[in-house]
């Protein structure tokens, strides 16, 4: 049972890890990265490392997306105003 869970958890982490890399659009990538974080949480739980799992939860659901999302919006706004200046 433990082995089955481990194989499933590792597979999901592997697949979602590749998904994060192949997603090229930053906004969508942030979302996919959230799922990747969730998969890591499951893996850490299966590996009986609850402390690390909780750390991964807080980093992948709160800290990382916020920093990414605000940066994406900010950069888009800067680029937009630069385009307006040109035209």
């Amino acid at each position, binding site marked *: 049972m433990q082995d089955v869970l481990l194989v499933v958890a590792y597979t999901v982490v592997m697949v979602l890890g590749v998904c994060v890399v192949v997603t090229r659009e930053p906004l969508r990538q942030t979302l996919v990265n959230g799922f990747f974080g969730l998969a890591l949480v499951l893996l850490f739980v299966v590996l009986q490392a609850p402390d690390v799992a*909780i750390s991964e939860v807080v980093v992948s659901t709160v800290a990382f997306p916020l920093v990414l999302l605000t*940066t994406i*919006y900010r950069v888009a706004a800067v680029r937009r105003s630069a385009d307006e200046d040109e035209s």
Partner: protein
Amino acid sequence: MTHVQRRLAFFVPAAALLAVVLGCGLTRLPSFGLPHSEYARYITEHAPAQRHVSNIVSSVVFDYRGWDTAGEELMMFAAVMGTALLLRSGRDEERRRPTDVMTSDAVRIAGAGAVALTLLVGLWTIAFGYLTPGGGFQGGVVAAAAALLTWVADSYRRHRAVTPATLVDAAEGLGAVGFLAIGLLGLVVAGSYLQNVLPLGIPGTLTSTGTIALLNAATGLEIAAACVLIFAEFLEEYVVTVPGPTPEDP
């Protein structure tokens, strides 16, 4: 030689070398699921008696490898300072106040519940860090998430009102200095940095584990305040784009 060929001439040998080094490293790894290393066995055997903890991870983080955690605390402190300096220098002094989008009563009421619940979970995770899984770092980020929820559920204005910069700055400094001061206390009283100098108490209670409990609380304070400050800096950058923040299609 074209551009691509030049790149390949660098890449192929470098990749081959990396593959060899990684391969050598991987063959020497302990096999998967090997129960305990010497170090892990020693810690799990002695930590409950030496430090009266029930979450062994906390005793490693705040005691056996406490010196590493002190470094991480300072790293976090420096990172926040760097972020603030960098972002504030690029910002206009005379910025217009953000126009908050009015949220509905339903969102505000549900949000108020979510804020209270998140804050409680955060404080709980910090408080019981050395008894059950969790600790200052994890709980600190959750507590900061509660502050962030006030922005999501209500308004940017409200978010800034509940997290005044002077209070959060002071809390962050106090957390970082507190950690180092507890370490110095050990140096002065017991002769080595981060040495426990407090009574260990009854295992499994909140008043047990001596300095681990205090270091855990200091870390919680430092991380919660540091996260609120980082979030505030990035939010400040974001609200400049309000109203109508629509990212461009690639």
